[in-house]
């Protein structure tokens, strides 16, 4: 958590109030994301913290609010964002420092029935997780799956506004217009279809609405057939715009039927989205870098790459807010272009630096090249872009034989006294001194090869973790007319699908990340708290049947310690920095507690743990009577009472600090296992029914051509389930 460590230097007094607020369990809670911000540009700063400090409502109000002004509610095991308050929450109000102020809760009232599935949500993994601050104060946190962000909520609201009024749903809040289950209601009012064939299109649409095809495969075929028919009926003599007309019609049809086509109920698309999203979150926590993906990046390039990945990732994140299959596909192509442009810029930069290169650089590069050459599974460094050197040195060939040599050539060229520290490398360099006959052509066609492009795409997808990514890709596959899903666009879609496939199937350990790294990050914790690993293992054992989901989630949970650790440290640092007097006491503390302080996760005294449990229950109880709160009380709070009780009973009887801490960790782990069960239930639900009609078939003769697609899709689905549950190796 680099961002955190950067922040540890900051000194702002705002944090004092936030900590004071959080110290009162009745007033506020800290949400602790277990995954990194989906957007790599997000830093953990005051804004981030404000997004994650949730204020409980006063009596009579049923929604909660973040310090940054996100209004939301706890529903079941989720935090649902509702909208944004016009202003940030005034901390002073809760701290009762200014009694006269108007509560920000006054202006808003929640109608729980108005919440639709398109609201930004985040899953809650655990509640009442104590985080100890450096001054020995304990605050309570909820572990959530991914970070909340005010800007996400803002964007979501903006999208809703763009969509225009929709009479079907009454807006839940005064200023926000519409809501629809699939987030993109028809916008036919805004963009009617202007085409002579509009009547037939509308006929098709209304027929589709009345009798939607049974499967998405059928839907996709009907869709393509219809567009084919339209194309046939178009008069070519009217111009060359048949394709444009078809594109416009297709876009119109996508908009009109979007809620029926996108993440349709008949598919397990949303489940797959969830699996992929969790998988990517896990990969993110394991600190995937381009090296793992087979691209070597110089330290100086990291920033530019991050910028590029941000820009490209922003593109991918837009996928979910655009209804057209063509437009979605265009986004994929655009993403490729951004990456390729960046790679070609890198190539140019290398050219520049190599011109001024001194001997040191030459040797460094030679060394790098030598290393690359000697690796059997050669990884291609980003520095290897064919480099059409400067015109003055006349090298122009983007096609120099070894892909990784060109940037060296110019270097060698411009710095003659190369000491031959390595014979083979030197001879290779010699053999590549550019021929003087080449013409100084600057078109760098050979720069962005798939060796670099695919890894960067994967990296971009990991860093941006786009919402409903699978569903969006499937939407393109199903509803972009096949005759237009060709050439470069087809290649781009294939690349993205391959990247996703890689993320879904690749063994993280095989990439050289995961286990060791994660374990090394939690090793200290394990050493400190011996029973932790065993409780972890026993948890895994009891959950063995769900090992697929378990593995994934335990990866996430393992890694969450790091985030947890980071944020804990952050808070400690805050208090530390404010000079509250704890500085000397903590640093002078005996080594165990210093250790603990370093990790931000510390042992709890029995009474503290008891407090934690009782306050959890107290909170539920005391708020229960308040009208409206019942609705907003998270369902899991009730469940959590049960899970906290055992912790309390063991903790009161145990005396050793380590076992107390173990209880604390068990408390954390209980929630994930519940989360896991829901994942498992889902997967069971999805998995329970192979398609009956195929089971009923006596022979292949009963199979129609039309069934094949469906059969294949279901086969893949079943295979995925088998894989998930580790039945297959």
């Amino acid at each position, binding site marked *: 958590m680099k961002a955190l460590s950067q922040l540890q230097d900051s000194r702002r007094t705002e944090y004092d109030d936030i900590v004071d607020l959080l110290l009162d369990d009745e007033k506020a809670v800290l949400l602790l994301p277990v995954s990194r911000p989906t957007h790599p540009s997000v830093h953990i700063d005051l804004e981030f913290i404000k997004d994650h400090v949730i204020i409980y409502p006063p009596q009579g109000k049923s929604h909660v609010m973040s310090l940054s002004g996100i209004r939301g509610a706890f529903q079941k095991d989720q935090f649902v964002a509702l909208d944004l308050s016009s202003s940030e929450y005034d901390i002073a109000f809760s701290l009762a420092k200014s009694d006269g102020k108007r509560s920000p809760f006054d202006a808003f009232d929640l109608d729980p029935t108005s919440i639709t599935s398109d609201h930004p949500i985040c899953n809650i993994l655990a509640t009442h997780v104590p985080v100890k601050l450096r001054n020995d104060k304990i605050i309570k946190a909820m572990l959530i799956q991914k970070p909340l962000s005010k800007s996400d909520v803002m964007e979501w609201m903006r999208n809703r506004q763009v969509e225009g009024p929709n009479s079907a749903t009454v807006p839940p809040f005064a200023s926000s217009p519409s809501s629809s289950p699939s987030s993109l209601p028809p916008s036919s009012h805004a963009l009617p279809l202007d085409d002579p064939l509009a009547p037939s299109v509308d006929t098709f649409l209304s027929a589709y609405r009345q009798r939607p095809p049974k499967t998405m495969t059928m839907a996709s075929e009907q869709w*393509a057939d219809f567009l*084919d028919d339209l194309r046939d009926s178009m008069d*070519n003599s009217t111009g*060359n715009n048949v394709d444009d007309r078809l594109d416009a019609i297709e876009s119109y049809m996508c908009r009109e039927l979007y809620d029926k086509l996108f993440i349709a109920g008949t598919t397990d698309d949303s489940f797959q989205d969830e699996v992929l999203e969790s998988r990517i979150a896990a990969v993110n926590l394991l600190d995937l870098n381009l090296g793992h993906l*087979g691209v070597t990046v110089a330290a100086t390039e990291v920033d530019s790459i991050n910028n590029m990945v941000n820009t490209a990732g922003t593109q991918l994140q837009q996928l979910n807010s655009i209804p057209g299959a063509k437009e979605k596909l265009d986004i994929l*192509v655009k993403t*490729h*272009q951004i990456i*390729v442009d960046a*790679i*070609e810029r890198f190539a140019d930069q290398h050219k520049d630096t190599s011109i001024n290169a001194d001997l040191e650089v030459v040797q460094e590069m030679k060394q790098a090249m030598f290393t*690359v050459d000697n690796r*059997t*599974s*050669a*990884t*291609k460094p980003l520095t*290897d872009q*064919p480099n059409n050197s400067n015109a003055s040195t006349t090298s122009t*060939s*983007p*096609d*120099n*034989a*070894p*892909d*990784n040599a060109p940037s060296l050539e110019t270097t060698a060229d411009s710095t003659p006294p190369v000491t031959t520290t390595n014979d083979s490398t030197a*001879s*290779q360099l010699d*053999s*590549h001194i550019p021929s003087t006959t080449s013409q100084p*052509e600057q*078109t760098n*066609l*050979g*720069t*962005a*090869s*798939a*060796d670099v*492009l*695919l*890894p960067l795409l994967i990296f971009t997808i990991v860093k941006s973790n786009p919402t409903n990514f699978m569903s969006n890709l499937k939407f393109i596959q199903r509803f972009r007319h*096949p*005759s237009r899903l*060709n*050439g*470069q666009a087809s*290649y*781009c879609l*294939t*690349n993205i*699908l*391959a990247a996703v*496939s*890689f993320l879904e*199937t*690749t063994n993280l350990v*095989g*990439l050289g990340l995961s286990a060791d790294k994660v374990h090394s990050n939690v090793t200290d914790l394990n050493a400190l708290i011996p029973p932790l690993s065993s409780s972890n293992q026993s948890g895994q054992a009891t959950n063995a049947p769900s090992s697929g989901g378990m593995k994934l989630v335990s990866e996430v949970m393992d890694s969450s310690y790091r985030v947890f650790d980071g944020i804990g440290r952050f808070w400690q640092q805050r208090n530390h920095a404010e000079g509250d007097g704890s500085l000397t006491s903590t640093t002078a503390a005996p080594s165990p507690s210093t250790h603990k302080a370093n990790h931000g996760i510390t042992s709890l005294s029995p009474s503290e743990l008891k407090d934690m449990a009782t306050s959890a229950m107290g909170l539920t109880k005391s708020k229960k009577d308040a009208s409206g709160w019942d609705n907003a009380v998270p369902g899991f709070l009730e469940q959590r009472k049960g899970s906290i009780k055992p912790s309390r009973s063991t903790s009161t009887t145990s005396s050793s600090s380590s076992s107390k801490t173990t209880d604390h960790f068990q408390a954390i782990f209980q929630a994930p296992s519940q989360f896991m069960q829901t994942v498992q239930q889902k997967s069971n639900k999805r998995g329970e029914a192979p398609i009956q009609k195929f089971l009923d078939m006596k022979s292949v003769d009963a199979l129609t051509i039309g069934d094949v697609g469906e059969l294949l899709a279901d086969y893949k689905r079943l295979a995925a389930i088998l894989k998930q549950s580790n039945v297959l190796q």
Partner: protein
Amino acid sequence: MTTQGKTYQFKLVLLGESAVGKSSLVTRFVKDHFDEYRESTIGAAFLAQTISLDDNTTVKFEIWDTAGQERYKSLAPMYYRGANCAVIVYDITQTSSLDKAKSWVDELQRQADPDIVIALAGNKTDLEARRAIDTKAKYADEAGLLFFETSAKTAHNVTELFTAIAKRMPLEQLANNPRSRRGLNTRDQVDLDRTNGPASDGCAC
């Protein structure tokens, strides 16, 4: 402008270990040919190039590059699915790259479209001094592959390679037997003719 000629479009997939010069080879091929419309905007990963076989016949290759790192091997079927031809590249100075190439040959012959035309290319003949692999003409012949030793650097045999593939493609069969909508199709050819004018001006020099 010319011709009543036909443009046949083929998907060509590039396979081979990374750093053997896959994309350099294609870049050389494309760069050495005049191209009146450059539709690719994504670098060397995807390129399109036409070759005129004769006055009436133009072949357009859509060239799909694949990542050569071992960790991406399992993704290859997504790329060679529906491919009409493949160029498998190895580096004549790297013995391991030939082993990898042979495993691609096996895989394609087992799993790809049975009609796929496969060419094996031993690249980097400009590094003759460091050659580690003898010419594999015999192996290629036995395996039914087109075979060339090439140099992307000097352009040796590059055009020859792609022209040979174009000639090997079953054009007649395709003409009589248009592919289904879901594959590369006749419509694509119609599109080309209509939107881009005759596509057969590509110079086969």
